[in-house]
């Protein structure tokens, strides 16, 4: 029982990271119907921005609370800029072409960020400075949780609530919902569709960067290829929860995280990478709209 509860704690921590990345996927997909393959690499870039800033701020890796917050914010802004550039330079020119062209562009951007990262940062893993040293808390019954795990969960929840507020209660959020419903109709209502799409990209990239920094604080090893698998799995999480659906992405992320950890703990760890895709195929076959998604007929 202790072991099971401990695994559950591990799963929830890991799942909230997936949830943060999945949010970016779900927003972009909801608005553009595009799988932004480069999203996982923006997550990687977020971790690297945090790495450089943290090294610059505290060469001796002396931890402090305000610094940690600064690192998180600056890397989110940095990734937001990258998201803006990716959207303007690569995705916007192909928006009017086929969806296939857009998808291939997304794959190209992803490969570019990964291999550009190898060129610029070097292929070897970097050590992310310990801006928040680890402490253990006993949860009773032998189950422990570290303060870093708590931070991951708390920051994730805060960011998700913030996003929910933006989407539901602000003008720009309303515009986002309108654009995701129909580009043409939104444009006729006087919404600048281009600007909303850019805003969505920036917002999604910032969330991915936050996930990158949070993971790096907890597992302080970052490298240019670290975004591939989490990126793909977060997409699966978004589909699992119902793509385009924000609470769905969070739920999907948690389900994925817990499922993965349970597979590792009780079945075979080698199936960790496969379970995501098995879940995906199962959900697409039996409930293609996702857990929280509603079935909609395809428009002709």
């Amino acid at each position, binding site marked *: 029982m*202790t*072991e099971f509860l*401990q*695994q559950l704690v*591990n*799963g929830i921590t*890991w799942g909230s990271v997936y949830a943060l990345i999945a949010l970016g996927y779900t927003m972009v997909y909801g608005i553009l119907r595009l799988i932004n393959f480069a999203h996982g690499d923006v997550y990687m870039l977020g971790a690297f921005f945090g790495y450089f800033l943290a090294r610059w701020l505290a060469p001796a890796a002396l931890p402090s609370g305000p610094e940690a917050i600064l690192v998180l914010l600056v890397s989110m802004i940095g990734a937001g800029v990258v998201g803006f550039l990716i959207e303007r330079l690569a995705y916007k020119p192909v928006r009017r072409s086929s969806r296939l062209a857009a998808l291939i562009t997304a794959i190209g951007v992803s490969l570019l960020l990964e*291999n550009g990262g*190898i060129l610029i940062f070097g*292929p*070897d*893993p970097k*050590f992310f400075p*310990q801006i928040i040293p*680890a402490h*253990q808390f006993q949860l009773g019954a032998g189950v*422990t949780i*570290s303060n870093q795990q708590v931070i991951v969960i708390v920051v994730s929840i805060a960011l998700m609530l913030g996003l929910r507020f933006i989407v539901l209660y602000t003008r720009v959020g309303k515009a986002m919902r309108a654009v995701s419903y129909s580009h043409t109709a939104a444009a006729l209502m006087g919404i600048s569709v281009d600007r909303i799409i850019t805003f969505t990209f920036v917002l999604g990239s910032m969330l991915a960067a936050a996930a990158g920094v949070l*993971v790096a604080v907890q*597992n*302080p*090893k970052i*490298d240019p*290829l*670290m975004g*591939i*698998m*989490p990126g793909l799995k977060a997409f699966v999480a978004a589909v699992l929860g119902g793509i385009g659906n924000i609470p769905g992405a969070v739920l999907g992320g948690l389900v994925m995280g817990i499922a*993965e*950890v*349970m597979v*590792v*703990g*009780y079945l*075979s*760890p*080698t199936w*960790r*990478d496969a379970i995501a895709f098995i879940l995906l195929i199962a959900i697409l076959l039996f409930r293609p709209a996702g857990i929280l998604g509603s079935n909609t007929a395809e428009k002709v």
Partner: protein
Amino acid sequence: MKRSILAPLVLACSLATLAGCGASGQEKIVVGEYGSLTGTDATFGGSTRDGVQVAWDELAAQGGKIGGLTVGEITPNDDEGKAEEAATAVQKIVNQDQAVAVIGEVASSRSLAAAPICQNAGVPMISPSSTNPEVTKQGDYIFRVCFLDDFQGWVMANFTAGNLKLKKVAILWDVKSDYSKGLKQYFTTAFTGMGGTIVGDQSYSSGDQDFRAQLTSLKAKNPEAIFVPGYYTEAGLIARQAREIGFKGPLLGGDGWESSKLIEIGGDAMNGCYYSNHWALDSPDTNLQHFVAEYKKKFNTDPDAIAGLAYDATRILFAAMQRLSTEDPKTFAGLSSKAAGTDLRKQATAKLRDMIAQTKNYPGATGQITIDANRNASKPAVVIQIKNGKKMFDTTTYPQSTPAS
């Protein structure tokens, strides 16, 4: 009209690049190197390249000649970390560049794919750091300058059972790595043979970030130590997370742990851990310290063992050429790029092979190297302890007899 010419033009250009890269005019000795300069294993290829570079630069500083012939600069060929690409790269080295010897690879899977090509062409290949026993069984032209995984597994088992006096060990290994799998098997066989038990067996995939699930399961089995026969990239994180979930015993590893990054990533969690390695940087050995100094001058960091092994492989090759040039200058002339494709070249590479095979007590940066009858390096392994964030030499283990392989 223009557009329809484009495709054939591109095709013609690409065919021309193929035909164009023949051997150039100047007479020299061509040595080839291949490695994973891109892809997930890019650090290995990079270290190998740097180690080879240091060896070549040293030769160049002394005039760059062996037996009157200039040794051409050794440029690496990228195999992207893929087995088929390694085969193609070595085909290029052997047939296009007409190299007289080949240095590479780190990963056994890629050495295995390339070895038959060198063997068929009669070109000696020296692997700096492929530790899987299968590699040198591919033929009598295939050598290595590192110890084997069966020896390494035995060393760690011996150390765990003998020096640390532990009986219950759990294993956490990398399912994506043939190296990790081999080392795990050899360790298990040796350790159970010494009366120990493996209480838990879990795996991960290289590139994973989160090992808490596996560690939680393993910890429930109450092991005294956890053997992690993987690479430093994961070992540091594993140590950190093991401490986090409350595992207090030592973590044990193999030469995959060797990197300056290990302690940086693992931090305090690495204290009290042990791993087997090719060298200990704090050893006063003059050959080692000479190489470390040269490497630092050039690249501004400490070398890892992969670089050291690449350095030794290159130097052993140069030494063999040197001996050939004095013992049999006539055949040695066959190593010149002018002799490519002739019978003399065939005799020369065959003789060069014999010279490499005769390497005895070579004072390398990674210890004294003797090439045995199976073309493997017979050399000691060291066990390193991590204490207060520093890697400290702990013991040296010599091969008792040639490991059965």
